[in-house]
C-alpha cells in the first residue's frame, strides 16, 4: 500500500503548480485550468485522507468539489467568452477594470 505521505506530497506539488500557473500565466484559459488543477489537488488530499482514516465524509466532499468545479467551469467559460467578445483578448493584464 502506498503511504499517505506520498499522496500528500503529490497533492502539494500539484497545488503549487496550480498556484504558480495562476500567478504566472496571462492567458485566462490557462489560469482557469490552473484553478482546476488546484481543486483537483485538494480532491486528492480528501480521498487520500478518506481512505486512510476510513471515513466517508472525504468522499462526499470530493463530490461536492467536483459539482462546484463543473458549475464554475460553466460560468467561468461563459464569462471568458463574454470577455473575449467585448475586449478581443484573453490576456488578463488587459482586463483591469477592477482598478479604482
Amino acid at each position, binding site marked *: 500500500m502506498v503511504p499517505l505521505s506520498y499522496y500528500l506530497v503529490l497533492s502539494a506539488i500539484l497545488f503549487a503548480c496550480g498556484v504558480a500557473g495562476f*500567478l504566472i500565466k496571462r492567458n485566462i484559459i490557462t489560469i482557469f485550468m490552473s484553478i482546476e488543477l488546484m481543486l483537483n489537488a485538494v480532491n486528492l488530499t480528501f480521498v487520500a485522507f478518506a481512505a486512510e482514516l476510513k471515513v466517508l465524509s472525504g468522499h462526499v466532499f470530493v463530490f461536492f468539489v467536483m459539482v462546484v468545479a463543473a458549475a464554475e467551469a460553466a460560468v467561468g467559460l461563459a464569462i471568458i467568452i463574454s470577455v473575449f467578445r467585448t475586449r478581443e483578448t484573453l490576456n488578463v493584464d488587459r482586463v483591469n477594470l*477592477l482598478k*479604482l
Partner: protein
Amino acid sequence: MSLHLWIIPLLPLAGATINGLLGKRFSKSLVNAIALGSTALAFLYALWVAIQFFGLPADQIPHIERYAAWMSAGNFSAEFGLYLDQLSLVMLLIVTGVGFLIHIYSVGYMAEEGGYYRYFAYLNIFMFFMLTLILANNYLLMFVGWEGVGLASYLLIGFWFLKDSAANAGKKAFITNRVGDFGFLIALFLLVKHFSSLEYETIFKAVASYPIESSAGVLTAIGLLIMVGASGKSAQIPLYVWLPDAMEGPTPVSALIHAATMVTAGVYIVARSNAIFNRAPIALMVVAVIGTLTAIFAASIGILQTDIKKVLAYSTVSQLGYMFMGCGVAAYGAGIFHLMTHAFFKALLFLSAGAIIHGLGGEQDMRKMGGLRKYMPKAFWCMSVATFTIAGFPPLAAFFSKDEILWKTWASGNHVLWLIGIIAAGMTSFYMFRLWFLTFFGEYRGPAPETGAHGHDADSQRAGHAGAVHAQQDDAHAAHGHGTPHESPMIMIVPLMILAVLSFVGGWVGIPPALGGSDRFDHFLDPVFKFNAEATPTAEGATLPAEPAEHEDRGTELMFMAISVAAAAIGFLGAWYLYYKRTDLPAKMAAAAGGLYRLVHDKYRVDELYGAAIIQPILLGSTNVLWKGIDATLIDGAINESAAGAQDVSDGLRQMQSGNIRSYAGWVAAGAAAVIAFMVWKGVR
C-alpha cells in the same frame, strides 16, 4: 398667606416672549399693547403687593415665598424663591414704576425706528431679569437676574448694531461687567464654603454669630468681592468705563437701564448684604472710599463733556458714588433713599435729554444747542426741575437724600470723605447748570432753520443717535420737515411730567428731624438694616460702624445743610457766570489751563491707560500665543498632520488595488501562505 410674587417677574417675561418670537408680524399698536400692558400689569400688581405688605404682621417680614427646588448637591441646595422685605419693596416699586413710564416714553421716542418689536422685547426681558434680581431670596437666583440684566444691557446698548461704535460699546459693557462678575462669583463660592447656603435668611442669621472682624477675615473677603461685582455693575472706579460708552444705546434705555435701575443693582446688593458688611469694617471702608472717589472723579470729568448724554452718564457714575458713600458709612437707608430719588430725577434728566435730542433730529452736541427754552418749553420745565433737584436745592427730592448721605458721612467721623463729597456736590451743580444754560439759554447754535438744512445732514454721522438702522428715520423726518427744533409728542411729555412731580416731592418721605420731618423712609427701611444688629456680640477692639447719633446737635445738621446748599449755589453761580453771562470766558480758561484741561477733557485718559495696560497685552497675547501659537500651530497642526498622515498611508495602500488580477491573486496566495505559516509555527490543529 401667599402674595404670588412670581406673577410680577413673569408678566414682563411673557411680554418679551410673545413680542420677541412673534412681534415681527405684529402691528406697532399690538407690540405696544403687549409690552406696555405686561409692564403696567406688573406695576399694578406690585402696587397691590405693596398694600398687602403694609398689612402683614411684623413677624412675617421678610415675606418669603418658596416655589420649587432648583438644584441640590451634597449639603448645598438652591431653590426658586422670592423674598419681599422693605428694601425689595422699594426697589420693586421703583423698577416697575419708572420702567413703565419709560415704556410709555419709548413708544414716542422709538416710533420711527426699525426693529421696534425687538426693542420692546429687550426692554421687557430687562424688566424680567431686574425683578428677578431684586426679588430673589438667595444669591444664586439673584445672580441669574444680575447676569440677565447685563445681557439685556448689552443687547440694548448695541441696539443699532450696524454702527460699529454701538456694537463695541455693547461689548465693552459686557466684558467690563464680566470682570466684576468674576469677583462676585468668588464671593458666592466663599459663601457656599462657609455657610453651605446661598439663601439670604440662612446666611444673615449665621453671620449674626460672627464677631466683627477688626482685621481682614473671611467676611471682609466676601464683602470686598461683592464690592468688586458691585463696582462692575454700578460703574464705580475702576470699572466705571463702560457706562459712558453705554450711551450709544437709545436714550430711553440710558434712562431706564443705565441710570434708574440696573446700575443701582450694585448698591442694592451691598445694602442687601449689610449683615456681612456690618461685620467687616474694612470692606465697608473700602466701599465708602471707592464711592467718594468715584463721586468726585466722575463729576470732574462731567464738567468738560460736550455730549449731553455723556454729561448725564458721568453724572450717573458720580451719583452712584454717593450711594456707595452712604452705604459705606453704614447709612444704607440714606444710600437707598438716594437710589430712589436718583431713579426719579436721573430718568427725568435722560428722558428730557431724549426729548431734546428727538426735537433736534438726533443732535447730541451741546455746543450746537442753546436757546431751546422757547422751542420746547415743556421739556425745559421738566429739565429745570431735574437740574435743580440733582444740584441739591431744597425742597426738591435729591436735596434730602444727598444731604442725608453727606450728613451721615460727617456724623460717622469720616470728615475727609465728607469734604470730598461736598466738593463733588458743588461740581455736580456746576456741570448740571452748565448743561442747562448751554442747552436752553442764549441763542440757538444749530443749523439755521431758514436755510432749510435740517438737523441731520451735517451731524447725523457724528451724533451717536444716528445709525444705519436710523437712516429710515432720517428719511421719515425729512418728509415732515425738521427745520426748527420742536417739542416732542405728548406721549413723551407725559412721563416727563410724572417724573418731574416725583423728582420734586419724592424726597419728602425722608425729611430729616432737623427740618421738622421724621425721616420716615429711613425708619421704614430700618428692619432690613437692623435685622441682626442687636444680636451682635461685640468683639474686643471693634465696634459696629458708628450709628449716626440721633442726639447730635440739630443745629450742626442744619449748618451742614446750609453748606450743601451753598455748594450747590456756588456751582449754579459759576455756571451762570461762565455759560450765560460771559460766554467767551470758558474758551480762554481752557487755553490757560492747557494740559490739565486736555487731561480732564480726555476723561483723564483712563480708557487709553486701560487700553495700553490691559487690553493691548491681552490682545497681543491672544493673537500671538493663543491664536497663532496654540490654536493655529498646535491644535490645527495636530489635526492637519493626522489628516495628512492618513492620506499618505492611504496613498500607499491604494497601490495594492492595481486592477491587475494576477497581483490580487498574488496577495491572496501570500495571505494564504502567511496563514499556513502561522498555523505551522503555532502548531494550531
